């Protein structure tokens, strides 16, 4: 190769060499700029983060957008616990503008961590209680249980299935109810008795209710299950009677809230979401879509609920300090069931 041409190519390559490095650096910097720019979103967008059980129909979303001029985006973030914890982990730059689905078992944690701008507003409630299979007890000629104290009676040995309080909010609700019912020093004894009476512990509500409970679709082996006071309304048979009924004590009232997140990019939009969730138009969908009672007085509830879903007279839930005590309860519970 003639020297001169080689030298020229040499120099060309040299400048290409530098060009590549400068190009690479430029790409890195450009990427960082893009990141900063895309971090912000359009002001018309408003994001509502919810737990996984939240349902809002497309029609309702459209109607919200039309009424308010905002563009509503829904984001699901696990069960109520994961939802709250994720919001705490990201609280400097919240992942949404408003939150629905923090319940009274997590509300104090949310407040303590300063997640909410203003207050949490109650939207709906449900009652966690035991259901029993009326047909099973009739067929076995055993009187059905009347109280959670019956569950530790040897007559009902091996008949009850309930959810693990470490993994299920339904299970945690009942654990909290026993703390309130029996007191901070005696509730452990009740659970030891439950254990000796051979209760089955499932991971979640689905497994307990849909698989192991004898009174529902799974036709399982256990005629007593921890579920909701409204569940009997979904077990009405062709004779017009519900196959199941609730035990009316030891119940826990679960209340769910909506709130504006502190640091929201669109606080005005978030307030509009809160208002919409409390409107009669949305409140009336709670029973059918989420199996919860609307908080709004006078909002319609299904006929089957008034007929078959007895609301327990005495419920717990208001006075318990979940933030401080949850870990101690669960540790003590684990020690019993380990």
């Amino acid at each position, binding site marked *: 190769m003639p020297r001169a041409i080689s030298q020229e190519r040499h120099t060309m390559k040299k400048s290409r060499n530098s060009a590549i490095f400068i190009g*690479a*650096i430029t790409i890195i910097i450009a990427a960082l700029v893009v990141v900063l720019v895309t971090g912000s979103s359009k002001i018309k967008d408003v994001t509502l983060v919810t737990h996984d059980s939240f349902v809002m129909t497309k029609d309702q979303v459209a109607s919200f957008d039309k009424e308010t001029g905002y563009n509503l985006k829904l984001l699901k973030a696990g069960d109520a616990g994961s939802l709250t914890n994720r919001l705490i982990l990201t609280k400097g*730059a919240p992942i949404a503008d408003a939150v629905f689905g923090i319940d009274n078992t997590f509300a104090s944690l949310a407040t303590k961590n300063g997640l909410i701008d203003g207050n949490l507003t109650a939207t709906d409630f449900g009652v966690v209680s035991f259901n029993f299979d009326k047909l099973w007890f009739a067929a076995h000629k055993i009187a059905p249980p009347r109280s959670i104290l019956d569950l530790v009676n040897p007559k009902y040995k091996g008949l009850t299935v309930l959810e693990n309080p470490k993994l299920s909010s339904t299970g945690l609700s009942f654990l909290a109810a026993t703390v309130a019912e029996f007191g901070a020093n005696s509730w452990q004894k009740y659970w030891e008795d439950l254990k000796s009476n051979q209760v089955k512990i499932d991971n979640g509500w689905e497994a307990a209710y849909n698989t192991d409970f004898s009174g529902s679709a799974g036709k399982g082996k256990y005629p007593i299950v921890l579920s909701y006071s409204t569940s009997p309304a979904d077990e009405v048979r062709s004779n017009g009677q519900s196959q199941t009924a609730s035990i009316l004590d030891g119940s826990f009232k679960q209340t769910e809230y909506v709130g504006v997140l502190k640091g929201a990019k669109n606080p005005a939009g978030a307030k509009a979401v809160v208002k919409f969730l409390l409107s009669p138009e949305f409140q009336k969908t709670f029973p059918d879509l989420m199996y919860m009672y609307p908080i709004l007085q006078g909002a319609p509830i299904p006929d089957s609920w008034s007929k078959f879903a007895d609301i327990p007279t005495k419920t717990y839930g208001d006075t318990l300090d979940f933030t401080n005590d949850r870990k101690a309860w669960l540790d003590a519970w684990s020690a019993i069931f380990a």
Partner: protein
Amino acid sequence: MPGQQSLLKQRTHLFTWAALLILFGALFYQPIFRTIGLGFHHGFIKDLFSSDNFQVTWFTIWQALLSTGLVLVIATPIAYSLYKIRFRGQSLITVLITLPFLLPTIVVGIGFTSLLQHSSAITLIIAANVFMNFGLAARIIGVTWQSIGNEETDAAALDGAGRLKTFFHVTAIQLRGAYAAAGFLVFLYCAANFGIILVLGNENTKSLETSIYINAVENLDLTKVATLVLIQSLLTLSLFLAVSKFSRSSFAPIGYWGRNKAKNYEVRDLPAILFTLLVTVGFVIAPLFSIVWRALHFDGHATWSNFSRLRSSGARDVLSISINHALMNSVRNAAISLVISLGIGLLIAFLLLNTRFQHLGLIFQLPLGISPVVLGLGFLITFTDGIFPLRSSWLVTPIAQSLVLIPLVLQIVLPALRGIDSELKDSAEMDGSDASTYWWMIQVPLVKKAILLATIYIVVVSMGEFGAANFLSYGDQATLPTVLYQLISHPGAINYGMALAASTILIVFAGGVLSLSLL
């Protein structure tokens, strides 16, 4: 003039090194140290040595050890039949046993969940570990086995030693390096098998990674998380350093198809061949076929309905977006990860070949020894607020993934580059070509295969990545693995059917990408 030019070159290199070090320092080392720093107050030591931490550490180690042992035992006859003898269909079997290694852990977990009714969680976790890794081990051992001659074993046979005796007294010793390399690599993968344990495990089978996740997202116990992150990182980093010590590149065998001076099989080889066939059919084809088969059925009937539901977001709209949307997100993330990690990875490789400071390489290699779960959590904690709110950008997941993929590129490409005959460089320098001409004209073309292999790994790993994405990708940015996990966390035939259909897509995808390596 030349002196001035080389000064300019030096300056450019120095500037690029500095930029890369700052980049890795800010994006990789900062989040890891911040996460561990969360625990630094009173109670750290007590938490670090708590019985619970001891328990999960011990579980992580023994399930990985047991799996590794099983993998090495199963891989041995397979390595023999695929690399020491010759019979029809070998290449196909080699491809098939590689496939499980390229599947996302979450898909493997889902494949094994249907057996939960019959087996305990721990049995299935071990089975899933073995399923994913035995093919990799067989190939690492086989490639070395093939390269050693038969003189010593023949001599031993002449002395009247039986086959097993010959294996344990001669071959096993010749292969100890390969066994160590395969063993440490499989151990590393089994100690960081987040998706498998999260899906198949229960209260009694918690690994370090799943405990990190649960304590961060469900219990919000960040002191405990920090201690677990420290233990997990020390464990995987030391395994990673052990892997690096025992093999120049443990990933190369996957791209190695070199054939084959082996002799035709004899009658006494039949047990090994039969074993290989049995494992391939029973342990690879059957489970994968079962996922595809069940994906094509709903309610007992053959139907496409699971696939057509991928347009929806699950029963009761349990997902924020449709599966198809999540698939597109995953493809997009993989494409961006590919550009970033191949670009920066090759840049670092070039710089490393032209510097005296080889130890700099370690700084960019270490991320491969860190669990993506740790990195994802670190990103969440570090980049949520402050001057650099990276987390709220959709680029966060591909960037986090790239940090783990860049070292992978180095692992695959550097050994190949260093393997190039140095005489080539000398003669190129005689011709007057400089480092970058030599790089583009000689080095890059010669390692095309390694670059293709790196591309395959990047795309497959990025599509299936779950540990980091589970912290960083949600809402309309969810990826296919993260929506898969959401689907199977919500029981019901519809969600499960959709999870199977999406898994089928990922299996077909991995198979398609793998077939590229045959090119």
